[in-house]
């Protein structure tokens, strides 16, 4: 009797206190869930704005011209000396013969990108036989035309408030009717370096700069990082000195990256005399920055290898070195690789230290090697975001998309490696 009563009151019937505890737990769960929902919403918002701003950048407006490569133009010795902009202007004039006034002509010619002339030059140099013939050529339209075609310039505004005049609108409309104007896949964006004309600007220079910089960083920081981690964890005696080193490595991981830039400027450029603005110096600076991350991740993964493995190897007569290289290191490698890739991803997104060593610069030529000046992806984003032309807004967003693609790819590789080689003890 007594026992059932106490059971009822103590365990089965929920007391006030128990209800409170359940309620608290429920709220705690809800709080956690809403935190996750909020952060997901932020990420979704970020991706949405970038994508909606940037997806148009992958298509570009082209205009078809009937260019007559008059033989007289190419009477000079060098093909490069011919008046290619003149050929473009002539083609535009033949398309719209009614345009005569000087001001009007200027407006008409400004519909075509200056890149058109470079394209004609390329064509002639590749195949001089076209001199004397008339060719149909698709050339890039000016960025203002492109913005209009993408709906980023409002046709209904008053003429003075628009970058495209009424005359130009009429010409554009007639070209659309004749199917001489269309949007195509923007190959230029993936095959060229920076430019001050939005329609000509490409990401390849910056992407290659990032690649070369990361190559240097990886090939220096990975072996150095792994070697230091192995020595500190497996061979070093435990004393004041190793404690001091450990503390300093942890401190270095927290140092703001711009400090590494200043250090790089003082040592690599001013003291060693390495050339400014090059992937070589950028890679060295980023090596300094990622080394602590890799050493810490490496030591953590070496620590997680059970001591029994070492003891077993030593027990059957392996030397210390054999134990480490044959057993401990292969088991710790997935963790080390993950740490390295995360360090690399960090280095890929870094601009602050590169500012100091002159990599925030306008560089048109795609770098061919590590001693050519080059920019990197985040720097390119920064530079485009700061350019006055409207066309760069979408290029900026597109460049961010490319950078994010690389980051996501690198992080997924890290996750994949961990999942694939992870051993549960």
């Amino acid at each position: 009797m007594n026992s059932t009563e106490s059971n009822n009151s103590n365990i089965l019937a929920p007391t006030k206190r128990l209800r409170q505890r359940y309620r608290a737990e429920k709220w705690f769960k809800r709080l956690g869930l809403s935190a996750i929902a909020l952060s997901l919403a932020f990420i979704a918002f970020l991706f949405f704005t970038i994508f909606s701003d940037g997806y148009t950048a992958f298509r570009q407006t082209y205009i078809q011209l009937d260019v007559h490569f008059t033989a007289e133009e190419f009477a000079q010795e060098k093909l490069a000396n011919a008046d290619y902009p003149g050929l473009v202007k002539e083609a535009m004039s033949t398309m719209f013969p009614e345009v005569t006034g000087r001001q009007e002509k200027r407006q008409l010619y400004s519909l075509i990108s200056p890149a058109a002339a470079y394209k004609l030059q390329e064509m002639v140099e590749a195949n001089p036989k076209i001199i004397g013939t008339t060719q149909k050529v698709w050339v890039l339209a000016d960025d203002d035309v492109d913005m209009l075609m993408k709906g980023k310039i409002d046709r209904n505004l008053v003429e003075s408030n628009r970058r495209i005049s009424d005359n130009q609108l009429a010409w554009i409309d007639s070209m659309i009717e004749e199917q001489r104007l269309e949007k195509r896949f923007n190959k230029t964006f993936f095959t060229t370096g920076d430019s001050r004309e939005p329609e000509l600007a490409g990401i390849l220079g910056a992407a290659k700069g990032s690649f070369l910089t990361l190559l240097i960083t990886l090939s220096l920081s990975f072996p150095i990082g792994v070697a230091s981690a192995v020595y500190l964890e497996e061979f070093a005696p435990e004393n004041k000195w190793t404690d001091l080193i450990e503390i300093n490595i942890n401190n270095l991981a927290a140092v703001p990256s711009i400090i590494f830039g200043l250090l790089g400027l003082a040592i690599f450029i001013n003291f060693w005399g390495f050339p400014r603005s090059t992937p070589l110096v950028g890679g060295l600076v980023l090596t300094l920055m990622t080394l602590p991350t890799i050493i810490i991740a490496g030591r953590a993964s070496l620590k997680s290898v059970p001591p029994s493995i070492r003891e077993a190897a030593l027990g059957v007569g392996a030397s210390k070195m054999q134990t480490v290289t044959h057993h401990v290191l292969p088991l710790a490698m997935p963790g080390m690789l993950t740490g390295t890739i995360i360090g690399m991803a960090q280095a890929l997104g870094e601009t602050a230290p590169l500012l100091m060593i002159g990599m925030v610069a306008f560089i048109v030529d795609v770098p061919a090697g590590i001693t050519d000046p080059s920019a990197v992806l985040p720097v390119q984003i920064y530079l485009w975001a700061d350019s006055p032309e409207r066309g760069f807004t979408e290029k900026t967003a597109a460049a961010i998309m490319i950078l994010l693609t690389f980051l996501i790819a690198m992080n997924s590789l890290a996750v994949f490696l961990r999942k694939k080689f992870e051993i549960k003890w």
Partner: protein
Amino acid sequence: MKVKSILAAGALTLALTAPAMAARDYISIVGSSTVYPFATVVAEQFGKTSGSKTPKIESTGSGGGFKLFCGGVGVNFADITNASRAIKSTEMKTCADNGVADIIEVKIGYDGIVLANSKDAKLLELTRKDIFLALAKDVPDPANPGKLIANPYKTWKEVNSSLPDTKIEVLGPPPTSGTRDAFVELAMENGAKSFDFIKDMKATDKKEYKKICHTVREDGAYVEAGENDNLIVQKLQANPNALGIFGFSFLDQNADVVQGSIIEGKEPTFEGIAEGAYPVSRPLFFYVKKAHVDVIPGMKGYLTEFTSEKAWGEDGYLADKGMIPMPKEERKMFSENVASLKTMEMK
């Protein structure tokens, strides 16, 4: 074995990509972020048409540019620095101390600084006095002229009764920017001069005078919006009550969304700035190290391209990008200076 091969691969990559420390075969340019959009266009045009390598241009600000430029002579130092103000005598001294004795000064054109707001708001008609009263940290006390008080003005109407009754909210560049230097000098200092006692102070206490004229209020009415002028334009669209300070080229490119306030009765237009009628405009320069002209490939070509009529002339491509060209005689003078490599006198 695996580890050894990874280490070997690392060493191999390093060996293959070992730096080739050859002489520099491209031009290195540093300096002002205001001149950057113009210099880059010239550099690109030069690179695409001449077959030489395209010059590398860093945007370091005028002061930072001179520091790098005056560091010394040799391939490790910049060949040209862009500036949105003339070189200071202290900078010239640094240059001379480091062996950079022969410098060619080239003025390239003008840039207007505009105070703009959204097209949705009313166009403002300001005087430089209004600008000084609205933005200075300390202003003359209206009740007791001759004394300075902390800036009490909250709305434009309080500054000048003909202006609208909106809150003073100005987005502008931070103190590190050349645009800010030029703005305080051309707009605020000239506005301050309209008060006689401040004007007199110039002769008696120059330091105090500079402090009064050049100190921008810090109570939230002036917002430092960073060096990104595009950001300012976007913020103006979002907030019709705010005004923004930036270079003319940004007004030119965004004329469909923002309008430049009229200052002293003059609109910030291309013609107005070119004639010198618009009061807040400044010259732009670049400086060339003479010792590098024959050493670095392409230097002469770049200089010729920049000083050609098709670049900096009235119908040139720099004018299309928003730079205000110089009068014809001035262009002629500077292009002759460049052709003959005439150096400036060292003070």
